[in-house]
């Protein structure tokens, strides 16, 4: 599904922090995982992920290191720093509160 760009602003950061709070991942894996968990409903333009990752790395939210896969392919893995972990928790709480409020309003409108 194609989403309004306005809806996605700010969402990418929450998704990255949330997925990386579970384990270290590389860019392509983050995209695949987001797509898989949303049952392919969430398909962002893949290129937008990398500037976001670099921005977060420069802000001290992420650490990155190159690792080699079993097949010898080099991948840049991202992990959350302590600051990133705090940010992930804060963003998750904010997101849940906002989404609950929006659901309540939309539910009210339909009911």
């Amino acid at each position, binding site marked *: 599904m194609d989403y309004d760009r306005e809806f996605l602003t700010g969402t990418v950061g929450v998704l990255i922090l949330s997925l990386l709070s579970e384990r270290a991942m590389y860019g392509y894996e983050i995209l695949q995982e987001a797509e898989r968990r949303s049952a392919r409903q969430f398909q962002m333009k893949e290129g937008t992920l*990398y500037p976001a990752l670099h921005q977060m790395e420069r802000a001290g939210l992420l650490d990155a290191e190159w690792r080699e896969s079993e097949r010898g392919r080099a991948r*840049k893995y991202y992990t959350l720093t302590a600051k990133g972990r705090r940010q992930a928790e804060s963003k998750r709480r904010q997101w849940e509160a906002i989404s609950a409020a929006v659901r309540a309003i939309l539910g009210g409108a339909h009911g």
Partner: protein
Amino acid sequence: MDERQAVAALIDRLVRESRVGSRRARAELRRELESHFDEAGSSPEALRAAMERFGSADAVSDGFRRAYRRGRVALYVAKVVASIVASAAVALALQAAVNVRIGLGADALRLAPGYGIGARTSMGIVLLIVAAWELGIEPLCARLERRPVRLLTTLAAFFAVICVTHLATDSAIAPAHALVASAVLTAVWTSTIAILSRLDVAFLNRLGG
């Protein structure tokens, strides 16, 4: 152009337009983007689909430019500071070279009284040229050594200003001294532009990949 070449061209463009400041960071960005497209597959269809999913190159490079803006600003400030320091050092060395007096005894090596005013004037010229260069005021940024007419005009202008200033303050100056002082100020001007030009090239090389 086949899909593999199209991917390579896309990566080249993204790395170039991202204007990432350090060579190492640019190499790492390139490696990461190559790794992304490697993951997507190797068949022409897979690569074509990966490029479509990747989105607009303009939007992605704009995102990278925003991500690295702080580093770029720091690099620009470092370039301007380096320009001023290097130009000022050359200017002071030129003034010292023409104002040094060799004598005997305790004052074997001393600077002439004119050194102070010469040094201050040179600093003023350095700051004026650096500001003009960064603001893009073209008439002040020409390579004088490549334009003999402009070089001579600048020399004559300095000569006139020095003579008029001395006349206005009732302090006499020999024409030969005024000519030497003008030549030094012209050399300060020329060397400052040469330094700015070289540092600009270095700065752009660092940003451009």
